[in-house]
Protein backbone atom coordinates (compact mmCIF):
# COMPACT_ATOMS: atom_id res chain seq x y z
CA UNK A 1 0.00 0.00 0.00
CA UNK A 2 1.10 3.58 -0.61
CA UNK A 3 1.22 6.05 2.25
CA UNK A 4 -1.67 4.97 4.52
CA UNK A 5 -1.97 8.45 6.03
CA UNK A 6 -2.50 9.99 2.62
CA UNK A 7 -5.03 7.32 1.65
CA UNK A 8 -6.83 7.85 4.97
CA UNK A 9 -7.06 11.59 4.40
CA UNK A 10 -8.32 11.03 0.86
CA UNK A 11 -11.04 8.72 2.19
CA UNK A 12 -12.15 11.22 4.85
CA UNK A 13 -11.89 14.27 2.59
CA UNK A 14 -15.28 14.04 0.77
CA UNK A 15 -17.21 13.74 4.04
CA UNK A 16 -15.24 16.58 5.61
CA UNK A 17 -15.77 18.72 2.52
CA UNK A 18 -19.55 18.13 2.76
CA UNK A 19 -19.60 19.31 6.38
CA UNK A 20 -17.45 22.31 5.47
CA UNK A 21 -19.46 23.41 2.43
CA UNK A 22 -22.94 22.66 3.75
CA UNK A 23 -22.50 23.54 7.41
CA UNK A 24 -19.37 25.48 8.36
CA UNK A 25 -19.58 27.88 5.41
CA UNK A 26 -23.29 28.75 5.99
CA UNK A 27 -22.49 29.11 9.71
CA UNK A 28 -19.75 31.62 8.91
CA UNK A 29 -22.05 33.34 6.43
CA UNK A 30 -24.64 33.62 9.21
CA UNK A 31 -22.18 35.23 11.63
CA UNK A 32 -20.90 37.62 8.95
CA UNK A 33 -24.45 38.67 7.97
CA UNK A 34 -25.33 39.33 11.61
CA UNK A 35 -22.53 41.90 11.90
CA UNK A 36 -23.04 43.75 8.59
CA UNK A 37 -25.68 45.98 7.03
CA UNK A 38 -27.25 45.13 3.68
CA UNK A 39 -24.59 47.33 2.07
CA UNK A 40 -21.82 45.35 3.74
CA UNK A 41 -20.83 47.89 6.40
CA UNK A 42 -19.83 46.46 9.77
CA UNK A 43 -22.50 47.26 12.36
CA UNK A 44 -24.12 46.19 15.62
CA UNK A 45 -27.49 47.52 14.41
CA UNK A 46 -28.87 44.05 13.80
CA UNK A 47 -28.30 43.14 17.43
CA UNK A 48 -29.90 46.43 18.53
CA UNK A 49 -33.00 45.59 16.54
CA UNK A 50 -33.01 41.99 17.76
CA UNK A 51 -32.95 43.11 21.40
CA UNK A 52 -35.44 45.91 20.81
CA UNK A 53 -38.02 43.64 19.21
CA UNK A 54 -37.37 40.27 20.79
CA UNK A 55 -35.70 40.69 24.20
CA UNK A 56 -38.74 39.01 25.82
CA UNK A 57 -38.49 36.02 23.47
CA UNK A 58 -34.73 35.75 23.99
CA UNK A 59 -35.35 35.49 27.73
CA UNK A 60 -38.21 33.05 27.25
CA UNK A 61 -36.09 30.84 25.00
CA UNK A 62 -33.46 30.54 27.73
CA UNK A 63 -36.09 29.84 30.39
CA UNK A 64 -38.02 27.30 28.27
CA UNK A 65 -34.96 25.37 27.12
CA UNK A 66 -33.22 25.67 30.51
CA UNK A 67 -36.23 24.42 32.48
CA UNK A 68 -36.85 21.62 29.95
CA UNK A 69 -33.21 20.50 30.14
CA UNK A 70 -33.25 20.41 33.96
CA UNK A 71 -36.55 18.51 34.03
CA UNK A 72 -35.23 15.99 31.46
CA UNK A 73 -32.15 15.47 33.63
CA UNK A 74 -34.14 14.98 36.85
CA UNK A 75 -36.61 12.56 35.22
CA UNK A 76 -33.81 10.66 33.47
CA UNK A 77 -31.99 10.14 36.79
CA UNK A 78 -35.24 8.97 38.39
CA UNK A 79 -35.94 6.51 35.55
CA UNK A 80 -32.35 5.29 35.30
CA UNK A 81 -32.14 5.04 39.09
CA UNK A 82 -35.24 2.90 39.32
CA UNK A 83 -34.06 0.67 36.47
CA UNK A 84 -30.72 0.17 38.28
CA UNK A 85 -31.81 0.00 41.92
CA UNK A 86 -35.43 -1.16 41.63
CA UNK A 87 -36.06 -4.33 43.59
CA UNK A 88 -39.19 -5.53 41.84
CA UNK A 89 -38.22 -7.13 38.53
CA UNK A 90 -41.72 -6.84 37.08
CA UNK A 91 -42.02 -3.10 37.81
CA UNK A 92 -38.52 -2.57 36.37
CA UNK A 93 -39.51 -4.46 33.20
CA UNK A 94 -42.71 -2.42 32.80
CA UNK A 95 -40.86 0.89 33.25
CA UNK A 96 -38.15 -0.21 30.81
CA UNK A 97 -40.80 -0.97 28.21
CA UNK A 98 -42.76 2.24 28.91
CA UNK A 99 -40.28 5.07 29.03
CA UNK A 100 -38.73 4.70 25.57
CA UNK A 101 -41.82 5.23 23.41
CA UNK A 102 -41.24 8.89 22.46
CA UNK A 103 -37.53 8.24 21.65
CA UNK A 104 -37.72 8.41 17.85
CA UNK A 105 -41.04 10.23 17.49
CA UNK A 106 -40.44 13.36 15.38
CA UNK A 107 -40.88 16.76 17.05
CA UNK A 108 -43.65 17.70 14.58
CA UNK A 109 -45.63 14.61 15.56
CA UNK A 110 -45.02 15.21 19.27
CA UNK A 111 -46.25 18.78 18.82
CA UNK A 112 -49.41 17.58 17.05
CA UNK A 113 -50.10 15.05 19.85
CA UNK A 114 -49.66 17.72 22.55
CA UNK A 115 -51.59 20.34 20.61
CA UNK A 116 -54.71 18.25 21.12
CA UNK A 117 -53.83 16.52 24.41
CA UNK A 118 -53.14 19.54 26.65
CA UNK A 119 -55.64 21.94 25.06
CA UNK A 120 -58.51 23.27 27.20
CA UNK A 121 -60.81 20.57 25.83
CA UNK A 122 -58.08 18.04 25.18
CA UNK A 123 -57.99 14.45 26.30
CA UNK A 124 -56.01 15.29 29.46
CA UNK A 125 -58.55 17.74 30.89
CA UNK A 126 -61.45 15.59 29.68
CA UNK A 127 -60.03 12.55 31.48
CA UNK A 128 -59.44 14.53 34.68
CA UNK A 129 -63.00 15.92 34.56
CA UNK A 130 -64.46 12.46 33.90
CA UNK A 131 -62.55 11.06 36.88
CA UNK A 132 -63.93 13.88 39.04
CA UNK A 133 -60.46 15.28 39.78
CA UNK A 134 -61.18 18.60 38.05
CA UNK A 135 -64.39 20.63 37.64
CA UNK A 136 -65.02 21.68 34.01
CA UNK A 137 -64.67 25.32 35.09
CA UNK A 138 -61.15 24.71 36.45
CA UNK A 139 -59.73 23.42 33.16
CA UNK A 140 -57.15 25.61 31.47
CA UNK A 141 -55.26 25.34 28.23
CA UNK A 142 -51.55 24.65 28.65
CA UNK A 143 -50.83 25.77 25.08
CA UNK A 144 -48.33 28.50 25.93
CA UNK A 145 -44.69 28.39 27.06
CA UNK A 146 -45.64 25.64 29.54
CA UNK A 147 -46.89 23.52 26.63
CA UNK A 148 -43.54 23.93 24.86
CA UNK A 149 -41.75 22.74 28.02
CA UNK A 150 -44.14 19.77 28.38
CA UNK A 151 -43.61 18.74 24.73
CA UNK A 152 -39.81 19.07 24.98
CA UNK A 153 -39.66 17.05 28.20
CA UNK A 154 -42.00 14.37 26.82
CA UNK A 155 -39.94 13.98 23.65
CA UNK A 156 -36.39 14.39 25.02
CA UNK A 157 -36.44 12.58 28.41
CA UNK A 158 -36.26 9.07 26.85
CA UNK A 159 -33.06 10.04 25.01
CA UNK A 160 -31.35 11.29 28.18
CA UNK A 161 -32.74 8.38 30.21
CA UNK A 162 -31.50 5.83 27.65
CA UNK A 163 -27.92 7.13 27.88
CA UNK A 164 -28.03 7.59 31.67
CA UNK A 165 -29.56 4.16 32.27
CA UNK A 166 -26.90 2.62 30.01
CA UNK A 167 -24.13 4.31 31.99
CA UNK A 168 -25.70 3.26 35.29
CA UNK A 169 -26.02 -0.35 34.13
CA UNK A 170 -22.29 -0.54 33.38
CA UNK A 171 -21.27 0.81 36.81
CA UNK A 172 -19.28 -1.36 39.17
CA UNK A 173 -22.00 -2.71 41.44
CA UNK A 174 -19.67 -3.32 44.37
CA UNK A 175 -19.87 0.31 45.61
CA UNK A 176 -23.66 0.12 45.48
CA UNK A 177 -23.68 -3.17 47.40
CA UNK A 178 -21.20 -1.79 49.94
CA UNK A 179 -23.41 1.25 50.59
CA UNK A 180 -26.45 -0.98 50.82
CA UNK A 181 -24.71 -3.23 53.37
CA UNK A 182 -23.90 -0.17 55.43
CA UNK A 183 -27.62 0.57 55.55
CA UNK A 184 -27.93 3.42 53.03
CA UNK A 185 -31.42 3.87 51.56
CA UNK A 186 -31.96 3.60 47.81
CA UNK A 187 -32.57 7.34 47.37
CA UNK A 188 -29.32 8.11 49.17
CA UNK A 189 -27.42 5.56 47.04
CA UNK A 190 -28.87 7.15 43.89
CA UNK A 191 -27.98 10.72 44.90
CA UNK A 192 -24.61 10.13 46.55
CA UNK A 193 -23.13 7.14 44.74
CA UNK A 194 -24.77 6.40 41.39
CA UNK A 195 -25.49 9.89 40.00
CA UNK A 196 -21.97 11.33 40.59
CA UNK A 197 -20.48 8.41 38.66
CA UNK A 198 -22.72 8.89 35.60
CA UNK A 199 -22.42 12.69 35.64
CA UNK A 200 -20.22 12.89 32.49
CA UNK A 201 -22.78 10.90 30.47
CA UNK A 202 -25.65 12.92 31.93
CA UNK A 203 -23.99 16.23 31.04
CA UNK A 204 -23.27 15.14 27.45
CA UNK A 205 -26.87 13.98 27.01
CA UNK A 206 -28.19 17.24 28.45
CA UNK A 207 -25.96 19.43 26.26
CA UNK A 208 -27.08 17.54 23.13
CA UNK A 209 -30.69 17.93 24.28
CA UNK A 210 -30.18 21.65 24.94
CA UNK A 211 -28.89 22.20 21.38
CA UNK A 212 -31.65 20.03 19.90
CA UNK A 213 -34.36 22.00 21.70
CA UNK A 214 -32.75 25.32 20.70
CA UNK A 215 -33.06 24.19 17.05
CA UNK A 216 -36.71 23.18 17.03
CA UNK A 217 -39.01 25.37 14.97
CA UNK A 218 -42.15 23.25 14.66
CA UNK A 219 -42.96 22.81 18.37
CA UNK A 220 -43.07 26.50 19.34
CA UNK A 221 -45.08 27.41 16.21
CA UNK A 222 -47.60 24.64 16.76
CA UNK A 223 -47.92 24.91 20.56
CA UNK A 224 -47.68 28.68 21.00
CA UNK A 225 -46.97 30.79 17.94
CA UNK A 226 -47.74 34.10 19.64
CA UNK A 227 -45.42 36.12 21.81
CA UNK A 228 -43.87 35.24 24.16
CA UNK A 229 -42.41 32.40 22.15
CA UNK A 230 -39.01 31.08 21.07
CA UNK A 231 -36.33 32.80 18.98
CA UNK A 232 -36.60 30.17 16.25
CA UNK A 233 -40.13 31.41 15.49
CA UNK A 234 -38.89 35.01 15.32
CA UNK A 235 -36.05 34.06 12.95
CA UNK A 236 -38.45 32.31 10.57
CA UNK A 237 -40.81 35.30 10.80
CA UNK A 238 -38.07 37.85 9.98
CA UNK A 239 -37.19 35.84 6.85
CA UNK A 240 -40.64 34.91 5.62
CA UNK A 241 -42.36 38.23 6.32
CA UNK A 242 -39.60 40.80 5.73
CA UNK A 243 -36.63 39.05 4.09
CA UNK A 244 -34.72 40.60 7.03
CA UNK A 245 -31.57 38.46 7.10
CA UNK A 246 -29.66 40.85 9.38
CA UNK A 247 -31.96 40.57 12.38
CA UNK A 248 -32.62 36.86 11.83
CA UNK A 249 -28.89 36.13 11.81
CA UNK A 250 -28.31 38.34 14.86
CA UNK A 251 -30.84 36.15 16.69
CA UNK A 252 -29.02 33.14 15.25
CA UNK A 253 -25.67 34.32 16.63
CA UNK A 254 -27.30 34.82 20.04
CA UNK A 255 -28.53 31.22 19.92
CA UNK A 256 -25.01 30.00 19.01
CA UNK A 257 -23.67 31.97 21.99
CA UNK A 258 -26.20 30.36 24.33
CA UNK A 259 -25.23 26.82 23.33
CA UNK A 260 -21.58 27.86 23.23
CA UNK A 261 -21.82 29.04 26.85
CA UNK A 262 -23.35 25.72 27.90
CA UNK A 263 -20.67 23.72 26.07
CA UNK A 264 -17.97 25.95 27.60
CA UNK A 265 -19.14 25.20 31.14
CA UNK A 266 -18.83 21.51 30.27
CA UNK A 267 -15.39 21.81 28.68
CA UNK A 268 -14.05 23.90 31.58
CA UNK A 269 -15.22 21.25 34.00
CA UNK A 270 -13.40 18.68 31.89
CA UNK A 271 -10.15 20.67 31.98
CA UNK A 272 -10.38 21.04 35.76
CA UNK A 273 -10.64 17.27 36.00
CA UNK A 274 -7.36 16.84 34.18
CA UNK A 275 -8.45 17.15 30.57
CA UNK A 276 -10.84 14.22 30.59
CA UNK A 277 -14.14 15.33 29.09
Amino acid at each position, binding site marked *: *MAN*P*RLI*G*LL*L*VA*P*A*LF*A*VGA*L*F*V*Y*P*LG*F*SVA*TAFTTKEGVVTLGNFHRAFELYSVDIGFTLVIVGVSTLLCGALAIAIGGYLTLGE*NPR*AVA*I*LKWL*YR*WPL*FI*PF*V*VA*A*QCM*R*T*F*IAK*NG*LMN*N*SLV*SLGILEPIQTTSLLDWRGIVITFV*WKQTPFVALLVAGAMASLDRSTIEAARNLGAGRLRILVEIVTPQVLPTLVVALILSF*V*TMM*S*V*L*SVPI*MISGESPTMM*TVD*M*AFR*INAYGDYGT*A*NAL*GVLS*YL*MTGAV*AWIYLRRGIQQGGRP
Partner: protein
Amino acid sequence: MTALAWLPRAIILGLIAFAIFGPLANLALWAAAEQWYFPHKLPVTYGLKFWHQVFKPSSDALLSLGNSVVIALLTVVVSLALAVPAGYALARLSLPLRGLIMLAFLLPQAFPSVAVYINVARIFYGFGLNGTIAGVVLVHAVHGLVFAVWIASAAFAAVDRDLELAALNIGAGALRTFFTVTLPLAAPGIVASAIFVFLESLDEFTGTFFVGVPDVTTLPLLMFTASIAGNYQIAAITALILLIPSVGFMLFVERFLKADVLAKVGT
Protein backbone atom coordinates in the same frame (compact mmCIF):
# COMPACT_ATOMS: atom_id res chain seq x y z
CA MET B 1 -50.05 -7.18 51.93
CA THR B 2 -48.33 -7.81 48.61
CA ALA B 3 -51.29 -6.23 46.82
CA LEU B 4 -50.99 -3.17 49.05
CA ALA B 5 -47.27 -2.97 48.41
CA TRP B 6 -48.03 -2.80 44.68
CA LEU B 7 -50.42 0.14 45.07
CA PRO B 8 -47.90 3.05 45.02
CA ARG B 9 -45.96 1.36 42.20
CA ALA B 10 -49.13 0.79 40.20
CA ILE B 11 -50.22 4.43 40.65
CA ILE B 12 -46.85 5.80 39.55
CA LEU B 13 -46.55 3.43 36.57
CA GLY B 14 -50.15 4.27 35.65
CA LEU B 15 -49.38 8.00 35.70
CA ILE B 16 -46.30 7.45 33.52
CA ALA B 17 -48.34 5.37 31.10
CA PHE B 18 -51.00 8.12 30.97
CA ALA B 19 -48.36 10.79 30.32
CA ILE B 20 -46.73 8.75 27.53
CA PHE B 21 -49.75 7.18 25.83
CA GLY B 22 -52.31 9.94 26.51
CA PRO B 23 -50.98 12.25 23.77
CA LEU B 24 -50.68 9.30 21.37
CA ALA B 25 -54.23 8.17 22.19
CA ASN B 26 -55.49 11.68 21.47
CA LEU B 27 -53.76 11.51 18.08
CA ALA B 28 -55.27 8.09 17.31
CA LEU B 29 -58.76 9.40 18.24
CA TRP B 30 -58.37 12.33 15.86
CA ALA B 31 -57.26 9.97 13.11
CA ALA B 32 -60.44 7.92 13.54
CA ALA B 33 -62.84 10.83 14.06
CA GLU B 34 -65.11 12.19 11.37
CA GLN B 35 -66.69 14.81 13.59
CA TRP B 36 -65.46 15.98 16.97
CA TYR B 37 -66.42 19.29 18.51
CA PHE B 38 -66.90 20.92 21.89
CA PRO B 39 -68.36 19.93 24.38
CA HIS B 40 -68.07 16.27 23.37
CA LYS B 41 -65.31 14.46 25.24
CA LEU B 42 -64.97 11.83 22.52
CA PRO B 43 -65.49 12.03 18.74
CA VAL B 44 -69.14 12.44 17.72
CA THR B 45 -68.86 10.19 14.67
CA TYR B 46 -66.08 7.81 13.67
CA GLY B 47 -65.22 6.89 10.13
CA LEU B 48 -62.63 6.54 7.41
CA LYS B 49 -63.71 9.53 5.32
CA PHE B 50 -60.43 11.37 5.91
CA TRP B 51 -58.39 8.20 5.29
CA HIS B 52 -59.93 8.00 1.83
CA GLN B 53 -59.08 11.66 1.35
CA VAL B 54 -55.44 11.04 2.34
CA PHE B 55 -55.00 7.86 0.31
CA LYS B 56 -56.94 8.74 -2.83
CA PRO B 57 -54.73 8.57 -5.92
CA SER B 58 -52.69 11.72 -6.64
CA SER B 59 -53.56 13.28 -3.26
CA ASP B 60 -51.16 15.76 -1.69
CA ALA B 61 -50.48 13.26 1.09
CA LEU B 62 -49.41 10.44 -1.23
CA LEU B 63 -47.26 12.87 -3.21
CA SER B 64 -45.54 14.05 0.00
CA LEU B 65 -45.11 10.48 1.20
CA GLY B 66 -43.46 9.65 -2.13
CA ASN B 67 -41.22 12.73 -1.82
CA SER B 68 -40.30 11.82 1.74
CA VAL B 69 -39.33 8.25 0.87
CA VAL B 70 -37.35 9.25 -2.26
CA ILE B 71 -35.50 11.95 -0.31
CA ALA B 72 -34.78 9.59 2.61
CA LEU B 73 -33.44 6.85 0.28
CA LEU B 74 -31.24 9.30 -1.64
CA THR B 75 -30.02 10.73 1.67
CA VAL B 76 -28.99 7.23 2.76
CA VAL B 77 -27.09 6.71 -0.53
CA VAL B 78 -25.27 10.04 -0.26
CA SER B 79 -24.50 9.62 3.46
CA LEU B 80 -23.16 6.09 3.07
CA ALA B 81 -21.08 7.04 0.03
CA LEU B 82 -19.41 9.65 2.24
CA ALA B 83 -19.44 7.73 5.52
CA VAL B 84 -18.21 4.25 4.57
CA PRO B 85 -14.79 5.40 3.29
CA ALA B 86 -14.50 7.97 6.09
CA GLY B 87 -15.54 5.44 8.74
CA TYR B 88 -13.03 2.88 7.46
CA ALA B 89 -10.22 5.41 7.46
CA LEU B 90 -11.09 6.58 10.98
CA ALA B 91 -11.20 3.01 12.29
CA ARG B 92 -8.25 1.42 10.48
CA LEU B 93 -5.80 3.96 9.09
CA SER B 94 -3.64 6.20 11.24
CA LEU B 95 -4.97 9.69 10.65
CA PRO B 96 -3.40 12.91 11.88
CA LEU B 97 -5.78 14.87 14.17
CA ARG B 98 -8.19 11.94 14.29
CA GLY B 99 -10.03 13.29 17.36
CA LEU B 100 -10.64 16.65 15.68
CA ILE B 101 -11.93 14.96 12.51
CA MET B 102 -14.38 12.90 14.58
CA LEU B 103 -15.54 16.11 16.30
CA ALA B 104 -15.96 17.92 12.96
CA PHE B 105 -18.79 15.56 12.02
CA LEU B 106 -20.56 16.49 15.27
CA LEU B 107 -20.63 20.19 14.30
CA PRO B 108 -24.02 20.07 12.51
CA GLN B 109 -25.55 18.71 15.72
CA ALA B 110 -23.63 21.08 18.00
CA PHE B 111 -25.07 24.40 16.80
CA PRO B 112 -28.73 25.46 16.75
CA SER B 113 -29.64 24.87 13.14
CA VAL B 114 -32.41 27.33 12.24
CA ALA B 115 -30.11 30.25 11.39
CA VAL B 116 -27.74 27.91 9.53
CA TYR B 117 -30.58 26.57 7.35
CA ILE B 118 -31.70 30.13 6.60
CA ASN B 119 -28.22 30.77 5.17
CA VAL B 120 -28.02 27.40 3.39
CA ALA B 121 -31.26 28.38 1.62
CA ARG B 122 -29.71 31.73 0.69
CA ILE B 123 -26.56 30.09 -0.69
CA PHE B 124 -28.54 27.35 -2.50
CA TYR B 125 -30.63 30.07 -4.16
CA GLY B 126 -27.55 31.09 -6.13
CA PHE B 127 -27.05 27.50 -7.37
CA GLY B 128 -30.72 26.91 -8.20
CA LEU B 129 -30.89 24.22 -5.52
CA ASN B 130 -33.78 25.80 -3.58
CA GLY B 131 -37.03 23.92 -3.92
CA THR B 132 -35.29 20.88 -5.45
CA ILE B 133 -35.03 17.32 -4.18
CA ALA B 134 -31.24 17.50 -4.56
CA GLY B 135 -31.03 20.53 -2.27
CA VAL B 136 -33.12 18.86 0.44
CA VAL B 137 -31.09 15.62 0.15
CA LEU B 138 -27.81 17.52 0.65
CA VAL B 139 -29.13 19.26 3.77
CA HIS B 140 -30.44 15.98 5.24
CA ALA B 141 -27.25 14.09 4.40
CA VAL B 142 -24.98 16.51 6.26
CA HIS B 143 -27.28 16.55 9.28
CA GLY B 144 -27.26 12.75 9.48
CA LEU B 145 -23.56 12.37 8.67
CA VAL B 146 -22.47 12.23 12.30
CA PHE B 147 -24.51 9.06 12.90
CA ALA B 148 -23.39 7.56 9.63
CA VAL B 149 -19.66 8.22 10.17
CA TRP B 150 -19.53 7.43 13.89
CA ILE B 151 -21.52 4.21 13.62
CA ALA B 152 -19.67 3.08 10.46
CA SER B 153 -16.34 3.76 12.19
CA ALA B 154 -17.46 1.79 15.26
CA ALA B 155 -18.63 -1.07 13.04
CA PHE B 156 -15.27 -1.26 11.22
CA ALA B 157 -13.38 -1.03 14.52
CA ALA B 158 -15.37 -4.02 15.85
CA VAL B 159 -14.24 -6.23 12.93
CA ASP B 160 -11.59 -8.75 14.02
CA ARG B 161 -8.29 -7.67 12.50
CA ASP B 162 -6.92 -11.24 12.31
CA LEU B 163 -9.56 -12.15 9.72
CA GLU B 164 -8.32 -9.35 7.46
CA LEU B 165 -4.71 -10.40 7.99
CA ALA B 166 -5.61 -14.00 7.14
CA ALA B 167 -7.17 -12.89 3.86
CA LEU B 168 -4.11 -10.76 3.06
CA ASN B 169 -1.83 -13.71 3.92
CA ILE B 170 -3.46 -16.07 1.48
CA GLY B 171 -2.91 -13.53 -1.25
CA ALA B 172 -6.05 -11.35 -1.43
CA GLY B 173 -5.34 -7.71 -2.30
CA ALA B 174 -6.28 -4.84 -0.01
CA LEU B 175 -9.41 -3.99 -2.00
CA ARG B 176 -10.52 -7.61 -2.26
CA THR B 177 -10.00 -8.05 1.49
CA PHE B 178 -12.12 -4.97 2.13
CA PHE B 179 -15.01 -6.05 -0.07
CA THR B 180 -15.05 -9.76 0.82
CA VAL B 181 -14.06 -9.71 4.51
CA THR B 182 -14.24 -6.30 6.21
CA LEU B 183 -17.36 -4.85 4.59
CA PRO B 184 -19.58 -7.95 5.04
CA LEU B 185 -18.54 -8.24 8.70
CA ALA B 186 -19.26 -4.55 9.32
CA ALA B 187 -22.54 -4.70 7.38
CA PRO B 188 -24.94 -4.99 10.38
CA GLY B 189 -23.54 -1.81 11.90
CA ILE B 190 -23.67 -0.02 8.56
CA VAL B 191 -27.29 -1.10 8.10
CA ALA B 192 -28.02 0.36 11.55
CA SER B 193 -26.44 3.66 10.54
CA ALA B 194 -28.45 3.61 7.29
CA ILE B 195 -31.67 3.19 9.30
CA PHE B 196 -30.68 6.09 11.56
CA VAL B 197 -30.03 8.32 8.55
CA PHE B 198 -33.26 7.19 6.84
CA LEU B 199 -35.34 8.04 9.92
CA GLU B 200 -33.57 11.37 10.50
CA SER B 201 -34.36 12.34 6.93
CA LEU B 202 -37.96 11.09 7.07
CA ASP B 203 -38.63 13.13 10.22
CA GLU B 204 -36.62 16.23 9.32
CA PHE B 205 -38.65 19.44 9.39
CA THR B 206 -36.60 22.63 9.76
CA GLY B 207 -34.17 22.13 6.87
CA THR B 208 -36.93 21.14 4.46
CA PHE B 209 -39.01 24.10 5.69
CA PHE B 210 -36.34 26.57 4.52
CA VAL B 211 -34.67 24.77 1.60
CA GLY B 212 -37.59 22.79 0.15
CA VAL B 213 -39.99 25.71 -0.33
CA PRO B 214 -42.00 26.18 -2.43
CA ASP B 215 -41.85 23.02 -4.51
CA VAL B 216 -40.76 20.13 -2.28
CA THR B 217 -43.33 19.10 0.32
CA THR B 218 -42.47 16.19 2.58
CA LEU B 219 -44.80 14.40 4.98
CA PRO B 220 -43.73 16.39 8.09
CA LEU B 221 -44.34 19.64 6.18
CA LEU B 222 -47.76 18.47 5.00
CA MET B 223 -48.63 17.46 8.56
CA PHE B 224 -47.53 20.86 9.84
CA THR B 225 -49.56 22.74 7.22
CA ALA B 226 -52.68 20.65 7.92
CA SER B 227 -52.32 21.22 11.66
CA ILE B 228 -51.85 25.00 11.35
CA ALA B 229 -54.92 25.12 9.06
CA GLY B 230 -56.89 23.37 11.83
CA ASN B 231 -57.38 20.22 9.79
CA TYR B 232 -56.69 17.87 12.70
CA GLN B 233 -57.87 14.67 11.02
CA ILE B 234 -55.45 15.00 8.10
CA ALA B 235 -52.68 16.04 10.51
CA ALA B 236 -53.37 13.04 12.76
CA ILE B 237 -53.42 10.54 9.90
CA THR B 238 -50.15 11.80 8.41
CA ALA B 239 -48.65 11.84 11.91
CA LEU B 240 -49.61 8.18 12.33
CA ILE B 241 -47.87 7.32 9.05
CA LEU B 242 -44.72 9.03 10.41
CA LEU B 243 -45.07 7.17 13.72
CA ILE B 244 -44.92 3.68 12.22
CA PRO B 245 -41.20 3.63 11.30
CA SER B 246 -40.22 5.66 14.40
CA VAL B 247 -41.91 3.34 16.88
CA GLY B 248 -40.86 0.25 14.95
CA PHE B 249 -37.23 1.28 15.15
CA MET B 250 -37.56 2.10 18.86
CA LEU B 251 -38.83 -1.42 19.54
CA PHE B 252 -36.09 -3.16 17.55
CA VAL B 253 -33.11 -0.81 17.91
CA GLU B 254 -31.14 -3.27 19.99
CA ARG B 255 -31.32 -5.94 17.29
CA PHE B 256 -29.65 -3.61 14.80
CA LEU B 257 -27.09 -2.09 17.12
CA LYS B 258 -25.16 -4.80 18.92
CA ALA B 259 -23.45 -3.95 22.20
CA ASP B 260 -19.93 -4.46 20.80
CA VAL B 261 -20.56 -1.80 18.13
CA LEU B 262 -22.48 0.50 20.49
CA ALA B 263 -19.59 0.53 22.95
CA LYS B 264 -17.26 1.88 20.23
CA VAL B 265 -19.51 4.70 18.92
CA GLY B 266 -17.73 8.05 19.16
CA THR B 267 -14.37 6.58 20.10
